[in-house]
């Protein structure tokens, strides 16, 4: 019962692990480039959550600094990634990542 009423760092870390796993599932299962990309964002977000939870657990702000950098890099990644997806779509007329086999030898 105490595990239900007292929220500890472990709770946050387990939630973070579940969200990360769901992100992995999205990348493995869906063929739409946009959904797969959003799943990657889900994974980054889950990792951020565990960073913030551990930052509080250790009373250290370094974890929050790392989250700040992860968010910045994610923003840069989204800009380039979406430009690539748009280029892919303009070239092939679909966002199905199974169609991206032009570079097969």
């Amino acid at each position: 019962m105490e595990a239900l009423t007292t929220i500890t760092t472990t709770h946050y870390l387990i939630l973070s692990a579940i969200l990360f796993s769901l992100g992995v599932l999205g990348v493995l299962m869906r063929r739409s480039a946009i959904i797969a990309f959003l799943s990657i964002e889900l994974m980054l977000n889950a990792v951020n959550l565990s960073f913030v939870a551990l930052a509080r657990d250790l009373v250290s702000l370094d974890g929050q600094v790392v989250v700040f950098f992860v968010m910045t890099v994610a923003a840069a990644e989204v800009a380039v990634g979406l430009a690539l997806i748009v280029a892919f779509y303009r070239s092939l007329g679909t966002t199905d990542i199974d169609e991206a086999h032009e570079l097969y030898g």
Partner: protein
Amino acid sequence: MSALIFWLLSIVAIGAALVLIFGRNTVHGVLAMVVNFAVVAVFYLMLQAPFIAAVQVIVYAGAILVLFLFVVMLMGNDPGPLWEHLAVQRPAAILLVLLLIVALVPMMDVRNLTGVTATLIGPEFSDPASLARLLYSEYILPVEVTALLLLAATVGAVVLGRRGAYRTKREEVLDLDEVV
């Protein structure tokens, strides 16, 4: 009280993730991610990281997901096939992810850490000024490198988005027709 909020919001966060993964509609997926990011922002507030929570709402929910929505608008709402050409891929993916959860969750038991409760942490911990001081002293080099990265990403996105940066398949076919 905060325990109740935690459990309710966890259900919302996991539910939103499931909508993203199993939904047939890409726009609904993006909106589910908005919900997920907002919920995680509340978790940040509960974890005494108000600055990170604000950045989460502004950058993730505000900027990144709006960019996603623009791209979905541009390309139409085509979710692609929900399941694969390979019949084993879906069950294999679900099995592997269940294994991942089984492997990850026991690792998350951190009772051997300090286990500081929220009341023991001073107000300066959640003050954005402390974070800023750390960013611009100890982490000044990473901040500068990130600035460079953002510039490179901006230039890269502009170059990729320019018309004529690459030839589409249709243009190649048109060129072939001209030769014939």
